[in-house]
């Protein structure tokens, strides 16, 4: 049986703004295997964010099928969707979306609070390990305002990783970063991918997309192309796809 991380078939989404209809997605289909590192490109307004929000179970399609980890999303009620977002997916927002009144450590620990059953001490330890992983071990008690854009982005990445999700979704994670910070972030993503996490990221920049194994191009709400990047050997994907269980980040990190 197909053990893909993500299976998407004929996804459609139309926004209604009064009289005007905006067809953001017009029938999108693809599979993403476990362990893949996929970049999604496309012009502005082509539907990339709409697609990512659906992959992240933050939004629901009007039509079409979406299976994550073999679970049919349309069959899940809202509480189960919340649990999927909490445990299977790490989502990095373009706008970071950190809680301004909480420290970096508290922001990173937040998903663990909603996971439940984890004592405060353990939550803080795990959040600290994630912040150290993204190179912010010295900034645990800083509030978002006291951090640079790149540092805030890394806090957002640490928060997405803290529940050790099998799937990391990032919508233009380097959109607000300079080229130096972007390269650092990509190095981190590649490292995480090597450890077995499936990564899907949206980007405008071809240099960033170069780091991925596979590039999906979206145009006018449809997949225009789906190609593997040259340097990567196809065997790499196949090998990664062979990994069946969700990676245990804690064990590796």
């Amino acid at each position, binding site marked *: *049986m*197909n053990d893909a991380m993500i*299976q998407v*078939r*004929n996804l459609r989404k139309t926004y209604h703004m009064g009289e005007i209809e905006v067809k953001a997605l017009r029938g999108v*289909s*693809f*599979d993403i295997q476990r362990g893949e590192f996929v970049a999604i*490109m496309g*012009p502005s307004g082509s539907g990339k964010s709409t697609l990512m*929000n659906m992959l*992240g179970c*933050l*939004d629901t399609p009007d039509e079409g*099928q979406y*299976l994550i*980890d*073999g*679970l*049919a999303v349309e*069959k*899940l009620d*809202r*509480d*189960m969707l*919340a*649990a*999927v*977002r*909490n*445990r299977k997916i790490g*989502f990095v*927002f373009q*706008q970071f*979306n950190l*809680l301004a*009144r909480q420290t970096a450590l508290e922001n990173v620990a*937040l*998903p663990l*609070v*909603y*996971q*439940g*059953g984890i004592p405060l001490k353990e939550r803080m330890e795990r959040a600290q390990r994630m912040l150290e992983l993204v190179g912010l071990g010295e900034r645990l008690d800083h509030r978002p305002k006291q951090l640079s854009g790149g540092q805030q982005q890394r806090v957002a990445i640490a*928060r997405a990783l803290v*529940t050790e999700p099998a799937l990391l979704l990032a919508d233009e994670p380097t959109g607000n970063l300079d080229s130096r910070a972007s390269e650092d972030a990509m190095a981190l993503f590649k490292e995480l991918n090597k450890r077995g996490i499936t990564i899907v990221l949206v980007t*405008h*920049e*071809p240099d960033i*997309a170069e780091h991925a194994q596979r590039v999906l*191009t979206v145009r006018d709400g449809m*997949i*225009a*192309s*789906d*190609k593997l990047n040259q340097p990567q050997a196809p065997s790499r994907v196949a090998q990664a796809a062979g990994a069946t269980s969700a990676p245990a980040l804690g064990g590796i990190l």
Partner: protein
Amino acid sequence: MSAAEQALLSHEQPSILPELAPIDESSIDPQRMAAKLAALQEGGISFIETLSIALKSLTANKLRSLLTALGIIIGVAAVVALMAIGQGSQSSITASIAANGANRLTIRSGASNSGGIRGAIGGSQTLTIKDAEALKKPNNAPSISAVSPEYNGNAQLVAGSQNTNASVIGVEPAYTIVNNVSVAQGSFISDDDNTYTNSVVVLGANVAKTLFPTGDPIGQKVRIAGQQFEVVGVLTAKGGSGFGSTDDAVMIPLTTAQRKLFGGKALNGAKLVSSIAVQAKDENSIDQAISEATLTLRESHKLPMDGSADDFSIINQQDILESINETTQTLTIFLGAIAGISLFVGGIGIMNIMLVSVRERTREIGLRKAVGAREGDILLQFMLEALIISIAGALIGLLIGLAIAYGVSAAGLIQAQPSAGSAVLAMGFAMAIGLFFGIMPARSAARLDPIESLRYD
């Protein structure tokens, strides 16, 4: 299209997009599926964690939280203080009436009005000392154990450099029995004092204190309306409210009051009295005493026994008590209603601020949902915020209400009686208000769409 994207496109190989068939979801192993779903339903944030999130967001904005709770604080403080003061004044009135003698009947001139409390004021005086003599005869009124004719007036009292105004009551010795008073010092007015119209006076406890702040009053001279009297006794203090209290009165012989002091008039050769207080043998003979007194007085006033109206009225202590209880009950309900309205308004204040707070925190709510908060978690968080505000407000209000009650008591105004009942009522009501007015904002928060909320600014 940017130059970078164009560059990418030019290098792009022709992509082969395979046709992907729809997934046959019925082919998915139902057992594995069920196991995964069950795993998703486990866990979740605990009540304690949600409570701590609610507390944190309230303490992050302490002034606003306090102001939000203000309506509840004032409402509960008002309920508790007003109830305590109301209860206190009611029981002090009740106690002073009981202290006057529960089996006492008061007979006044004039027909009773519908309220039954007071005879017509200014009606012609019909009670004389002869009526009192008639009531004293055991054959006439066997259920009456004591008869105390009284003659009241007000006068200025002067002793040395001290002076005061007091009610001056002309009495016979039976006064002590009927009105349940005792002498602390010296002796009471005697029969001899009445026989010889002696100028002697017995002082109520407060009057004694006012006129003789330091020395012993017994044997001292007091001028009452310009005439000299000798103090022969001081009454034991009764305390309680001033309602009918003997503490603020002085007693002189009835005959002295009638002849020397107030120049009492006579009717058919018998001296008039202001009122006659009688004591029934016991609680069970009050009704019997009333009918005996009525018969005796009608006979004495030569009224026909044909059911025509009496020219006097008999007032029962029990009637007074009931009527006072009725009045204070109405007052308590009235005060309670006002306090209830202020609690309700306080609840609207909570709802208002909570709605603003939900709107302000839309992005935060969206983020919490995006990282895994369920609708119930958000609902509980905001319900708890509203509840904490109302409960904390009620507690603060309770303390303030008690402080007011004790302050009023300490100032000697009224012995307030805070009751656990009113505290529980106010707290329960405040909590219900928190629940009632918290549910709407909490639901609107819980129902927010995560993506819409994250886009909100």
